């Protein structure tokens, strides 16, 4: 059940001079996309490096050619002058041929990559799972204005703005939103998937290394977007079990009625992590259904036009969290 990532991580990092700038450890540099720590993000990284390499193979010679032509054929330079020369079949063949060839190769790679990281059934995870066996962890994600609720239906628990996953185990998500469109991403682990109201999308990831990774919404969803981030803690399977058990002790319970209050617009300026020890079964499906039937949690004008007062109040009410 423990999935080991076999893809080499070292060679492409040498290729990329950008990596020089990422002096030191991973979270230090903040260049999250260049420090993949999950199976999906590493697959992206692999294709990304190939893509950049192939593109540079074309772009660098083109830049050199341009600068050479600019220099050699400057007025007063040594280039020979042929004002009427404007056509050559050989050159035409080359200038159509090179882009055609490049696009052909890139298209092939792109399609391969799309199937490998396809959010609904990533090829790389399917393959790894086949080899390792075992069951994935399921997480239902509900984006509200402007918080993330993570429900673990198998464990009957839920957490707010904090996602805990076991290392080396596939995690499969179902996602929906209560209000507007958000975009779920944990850059070091997995790419984006839209989170849409009244609809269900899917995503999957495997974390390779224990650690804390940031996640956030990438699609503009309103005034609270900048604070709509969460922490992903990748822990060992044993620690995950421990966390589940302690979470189940939490006295807070979540039913649809409680969720109805929870989902009202709220800007988590100081962070807002909560744990629910007991969650109504099928809460996710009920939310999708209610929204589809027309349920909305509207944004009061006081949270748009009069932001200033709202933010002050919010700030005063919350302890200044730090993340």
């Amino acid at each position, binding site marked *: 059940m423990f999935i080991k990532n076999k893809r080499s991580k070292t060679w492409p990092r040498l290729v990329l001079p950008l990596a020089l700038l990422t002096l030191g450890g991973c979270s230090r540099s903040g260049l999250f*996309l260049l420090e993949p720590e999950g199976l999906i993000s590493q697959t992206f990284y692999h294709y990304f490096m190939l893509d950049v390499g192939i593109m540079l193979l074309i772009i660098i010679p083109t830049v050199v050619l341009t600068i050479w032509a600019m220099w050699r054929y400057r007025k007063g330079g040594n*280039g020979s*002058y042929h004002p009427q020369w404007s056509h050559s079949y050989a050159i035409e063949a080359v*200038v159509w041929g090179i882009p055609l060839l490049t*696009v052909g190769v890139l298209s092939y790679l792109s399609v391969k990559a799309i199937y490998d990281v396809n959010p609904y059934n990533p090829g790389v995870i399917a393959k790894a799972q086949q080899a390792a066996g075992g069951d994935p962890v399921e997480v239902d994600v509900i984006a509200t204005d402007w918080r993330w609720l993570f429900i673990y239906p198998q464990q009957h628990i839920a957490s707010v703005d904090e996602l805990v996953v076991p290392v080396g185990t596939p995690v499969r998500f179902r996602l929906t939103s209560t209000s507007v469109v958000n975009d779920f991403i944990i850059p070091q682990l997995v790419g984006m998937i839209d989170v849409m109201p009244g609809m269900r999308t899917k995503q999957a990831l495997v974390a390779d290394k224990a650690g804390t990774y940031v996640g956030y919404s990438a699609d503009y969803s309103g*005034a609270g977007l900048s604070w709509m981030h969460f922490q992903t803690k990748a822990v060992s399977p044993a620690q995950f079990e421990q966390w589940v058990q302690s979470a189940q002790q939490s006295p807070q319970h979540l039913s649809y009625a409680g969720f109805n209050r929870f989902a009202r617009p709220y800007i988590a300026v100081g962070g807002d992590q909560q744990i629910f020890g007991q969650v109504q079964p099928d809460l996710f499906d009920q939310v999708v259904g209610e929204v589809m*039937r027309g349920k909305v949690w509207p944004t009061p*004008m006081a949270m748009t036009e009069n932001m*200033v007062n709202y933010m002050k109040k919010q700030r005063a009410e919350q302890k*200044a969290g730090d993340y």
Partner: protein
Amino acid sequence: MLVHLQGPWNPLLGRLTLQQIPYENPILLGTFIFAAILGVIVLGATTRYGKWGYVWREWLTTVDHKKIGVMYCLVGLVMLFRGFIDALMIRTQQAIAIGPNSPGALGAVHGYLTPFHVGQIYTAHGLIMVVFAATPLLVGIMNIIVPLQIGARDMAYPYLNALGLWLTTAGGALVMLSLFVGNFAHGGWYGFVPYFELPYSPGVGVDYWMWAFQLSVLGTTMGSINLIATIVKMRAPGMTWMRMPIFTWASLSTNLIALTSFPVLMVALGLLGMDRYLGTHFYTAGMGGNLMLYNDLFWIWGHPEVYFLILPAFGMMSEIIPTFSEKTLFGYATMVIASFAIGGVSWGVWLHHFFTMAAAPNVNSFYSITTMLVGIPTGVKVFNWIFTMYRGRVRYELPMLWALLALFLLLVGGMTGMMNAFASNDYMWHNGLFVVAHFHMMVLLIAASVFGAVEYWFPKVFGFKLEQKWGKWFFWFMVLGTGWVFVPMFFLGMAGMTRRLDYIPYTQWAPYLHITLVGMAFYVVAVLFFVAHLYVSLRDREKNRVGADAWGTSRNLEWMTHSPVPAYNFAFIPHVNARDEWAWRKENGIAELHAGDYEDIHMPKNTGIPLFLGLLSMGLAFALVWRIWWLALLCLVLMVALIIIRSFDRDTDTTIPAREVERVERAARDGSSGSVPPAGVLGDAVIATSTVRSGSGGIGGNTTSPRPSWAPRNR
């Protein structure tokens, strides 16, 4: 009222109340004072120097394609400045509001702008730059140059041309108005559903955005009809398709894109309007609405739109590079094919704007491949420009510098675009700063081409060249600014930083954000150099007067007539013998302008109706924004009435008599081209003849002729 509105409404003023005037916001108050002072100066000067008659006769009511083009460019320039200020505010906010301990001011928790305010700023920035800066600048230049390049005396529909201008201007003015009355949309320039629906955007901001957008859609669609008709029907005799200048080809392909795509946007916005005004459920999450429909409709316009912007820019590069390489364009036929290939493919790629919306992998694969296909004709164009310089004699004057900057930006933008098209990459950085940096490379390419084109064609329109010294400072500081702002932005893209943040939670990103601020400082200096460039050019204009062929090595018809171009463009409609006609004539020693038996020239007559329609459309939009129903109805009725009145007016043409043409031509040829009655701003002796009544025969009055004489006759 069919929908539930938050806040008060009354029949007289709709949703408008005193609280909607944001006088307590120091930033907006300052802006208002600045705008008011500027307005007083401009209006005061016009009154002081008694220029109202001149402004009215020669500009506000004109149907002359050159003046309309100049006004489009002025609108574009003003909006470019506004958009730049917006950018400056976003960048400063993001350079301050980093990490939980960053300071806050003016009511913001971090930085000096609240999320709501930041949202308005980047929404306005995006909409303005795409729709009210780039589009008017490009349309303006096409307006001026295309008729000249094909040897026509005006556009096919001069009246429609003016109408397009005033509708676009009304849209831009509406965006400006939202600064001082109410607020603007705060979600992003392309609109989000269901975020832009009433429950989540209860204010008037989205309505301002929607109606301003709609006005520009109308204006641009009209413009595209006009340019297509002009190019197809009004080419000078002898100008076969394959003799058409490349910029005209670019204009044709780009306007075909506009004509076919803008109506889709009108529908997309119209359905949103029905949701917001009539309570329908096209894009809502529930009640059978489908929010994905909006994304499809919007980007079916949105992607062709970006090519609508880039093709004229390519056309400009294709004019400038041969002129300053003193050589024919390499691969003319390929260039034409590539333009149309880009136009054609641009229709089949829109899904790449939402690869992350969970389409099946085979669907994403399809759109990934079609998007990459665009890279082929684009790459071909790049090579053709390089081979145009090859075996040429390249002169590095200002227009050429801008064109080459555009070429390099295209290499970066094209490469990063291809990387976006690689869908697995896009999953990681969609809605991130990598995408933002990508399209800014492209949009700055357009800006660079426009600056190049303005330097290049300015002497044609105004009769004198812009000076070079300050212009070069301006150029180099734009280069510096672009590097310093956007290179770090690519890094931020690699950091996974997303768009539209008003607060940045991760302090590791701070160095990059600070570097972009340095870049903005370069841009600010560049703007100052630009002002100096304009000022010195105007001051020294007598020193920089030029003849017909300002650059000496130009190749197309527009350089054959006088600079500045007389109202009627060509005293005699030229007969075209070759591709690059003007170069051909110079080579064959027949570059002398024909002089002799001048004839009366029939031209379209000025009219104030487009201006009034523009004003009324703005009134209508304003009334709809605030839901002042009686005012909306009134404006609508008046508009319809004006249109009907105009349709009965048969006195729409005028004649420039032969002796007047002769006088103008002689003055132009007598060396001192400075004394030509110009089509531009700088002369007082502006052609009074446009108001001369038609005398004998001809087109004016009630005679019905199938073809006015501003159009060349048969080919």
